């Protein structure tokens, strides 16, 4: 495929949609201004204007398509684009870490995909993007990039035999429903609703809360409870649908030294993750899943823009597993992580440290609420009770453990998180102590791992026995290791 190729013509249409999406708001404002000021005689003006603009957008989209070419030549993927400013981007295939494809509804109608090429460089966008090409061309590019690994692997035939063995895990429909039902996305939706009502507040110049509050007081207690339950159910359903769209037909498989993930109902995503890019494995048990022994597995991956659409930068390896399946899952797909370990937990005297700050904050909030709302503020006492329960859980779940080459940290932030990091994947190791901790011989551990762009991720376990923290520090330090070896 060394001659330059253009994308599928449908990308003209896709490009138009994108431009329209970008300019729709200023355009609409301009239009309203025009319509307000024209006399009845020029009733046709908006239509002419609209048509003209559409024509211009179409022209630009056409030129964009016309000037966009890609080819593979001299071990490089060469993408040339730009209407006025020519941009030539040559990416050496030796520098390419992964080639991911995705397909939205329009792509799928025409059997096309969007292809994204990842290199080590951080940043929000992928280094090379081809917005629309046929599946055949996409797989040709994927093959072109893969060739390098075969060059290396050929030296060792045993590896090839191993890589032929393919493992795959598929998310069953029942699991999908269970994952959706327990996704815990409800909280996010609530946050979203809160933001919207805040906005409505500004725009409509009425206070939704006071309006709602008075309306609620007028209703009977039963009705308000029904209303609360109903709105909870609706938000829950919305969150559920979101999860289903995202994780429908989820499948992860391992081929050689790469993980291959496919997911999505309307928008299909295909992702390739080379095993050596995985920096840490994260097991999350949220409060809806933990009681049923269910969990989700994700990974921190260096470089690329994996999961840029979410706040969460880690990449989901599997949305829902049973606890007892986890070890087999990790063994088959990642091979070198051990799940079950004996944790070094914070001592009893650390409990006060876990309790103090959150309790102080929630008591303060409750105090303020009671001061302003009197009797109704007493409901805020529920907040205090919940805080205490979570502090107990935080304290009970925290712990660290390590083997010769892997560090495991467990902590809770509503969701119980267990992180497994290989020693050589830790970028920086921290041990810290403040005045109250030093009085009680406690210490906090933190590690930083590379993830996504440049910022990295950090994991922290608080208020451990100082002796344990020191030993972990020694475990990580090359210097103290050398000392014990002597």
């Amino acid at each position, binding site marked *: 495929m060394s001659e330059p190729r253009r994308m599928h013509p449908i990308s003209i249409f896709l490009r138009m949609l994108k431009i329209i999406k970008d300019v729709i708001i200023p355009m609409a404002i301009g239009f309203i201004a025009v319509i307000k000021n024209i006399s009845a005689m020029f009733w046709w003006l908006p239509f002419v204007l609209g048509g003209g603009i559409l024509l211009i957008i179409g022209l630009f989209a056409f030129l964009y398509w016309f000037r966009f070419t890609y080819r593979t030549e001299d071990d490089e993927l060469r993408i040339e684009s730009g209407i006025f400013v020519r941009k030539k981007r040559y990416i050496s295939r030796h520098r390419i870490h992964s080639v991911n494809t995705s397909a939205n509804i329009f792509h799928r109608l025409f059997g096309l995909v969007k292809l994204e090429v990842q290199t080590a460089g951080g940043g929000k966008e992928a280094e090379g993007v081809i917005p629309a090409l046929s599946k055949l061309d996409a797989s040709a590019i994927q093959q072109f990039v893969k060739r390098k690994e075969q060059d290396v692997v050929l030296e060792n035939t045993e590896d090839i035999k191993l890589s032929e063995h393919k493992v795959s895990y598929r998310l069953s429909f029942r699991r999908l429903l269970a994952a959706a039902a327990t996704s815990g996305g409800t909280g996010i939706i609530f946050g979203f609703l809160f933001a919207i009502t805040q906005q409505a507040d500004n725009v409509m110049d009425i206070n939704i809360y006071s309006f709602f509050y008075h309306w609620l007081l007028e209703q009977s207690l039963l009705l308000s409870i029904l209303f609360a339950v109903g709105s909870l159910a609706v938000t829950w359903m919305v969150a559920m649908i979101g999860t289903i769209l995202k994780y429908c037909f989820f499948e992860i498989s391992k081929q050689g030294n790469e993980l291959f993930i496919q997911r999505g109902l309307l928008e299909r995503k295909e992702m390739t993750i080379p095993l050596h890019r995985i920096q840490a494995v994260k097991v999350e048990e949220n409060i809806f899943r933990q009681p049923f022994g269910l969990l989700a597995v994700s990974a921190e991956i260096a470089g690329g823009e994996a999961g840029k659409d979410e706040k969460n930068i880690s990449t989901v390896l599997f949305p829902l597993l049973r606890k007892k399946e986890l070890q087999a899952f990790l063994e088959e797909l990642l091979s070198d992580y051990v799940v079950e370990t004996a944790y070094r937990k914070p001592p009893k005297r650390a409990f006060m440290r876990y309790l103090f700050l959150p309790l102080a904050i929630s008591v303060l909030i409750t105090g303020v609420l009671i001061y302003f709302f009197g009797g109704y503020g007493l409901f805020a006492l529920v907040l205090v009770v919940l805080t205490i329960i979570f502090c107990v859980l935080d304290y009970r779940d925290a712990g660290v453990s390590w083997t010769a080459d892997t560090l495991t940290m467990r902590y809770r932030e509503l969701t119980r998180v267990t992180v497994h990091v290989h020693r*050589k994947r830790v*970028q920086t190791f921290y*041990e810290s102590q403040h005045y109250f901790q*030093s009085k009680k011989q406690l210490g906090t551990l933190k590690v930083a791992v590379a993830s996504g762009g440049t910022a*990295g991720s950090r994991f922290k376990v608080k208020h451990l026995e100082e002796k344990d923290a020191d030993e972990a520090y020694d475990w990580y330090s*090359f210097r103290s290791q050398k000392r014990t070896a002597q």
Partner: protein
Amino acid sequence: MKTQPSNRIAANAKKVWRINASLYMLLPIIAAGVVTYFQNAWSIPDYILYIGWAVLIAALFIFIWLLPAVRWKRWRYEVFEQEIYIQSGILIVTQTIVPMIRVQHVDTEQGPVLKKFGLATVSVSTAATTHHIPALALEEALELRDRIGVLARVEEDDV
């Protein structure tokens, strides 16, 4: 906590931090001055003015005198063949290990205040973090940068 790393940063660091803190504190001082000047015009009661000035003076004392001293006392570092130890913090003291094989690049930088005192800051970056060793004598900073640069040139496993 483990034993402290052996090297301190330059004693002039305290002066640099104090000058920087003073510059930052200029804004609240000016604000307080303006409020005092217009006290009658804006009909501000006396007690608010007194409280404001008391808070301001306490803040000046803490940010300009106390914190730089504590910060300097805590700040220590040591560079070994395979890793860099750093200890820093004011209320929370943190000991940090940065392994040489994870170091991606080292920089030195020098702002106007640092320059006046002949000091420079060494910044060490990994794939996930950046660590600043502030206020070393310029010679020492350049030497340290080169040394870390050489030590970090070891063949990497990955990442």
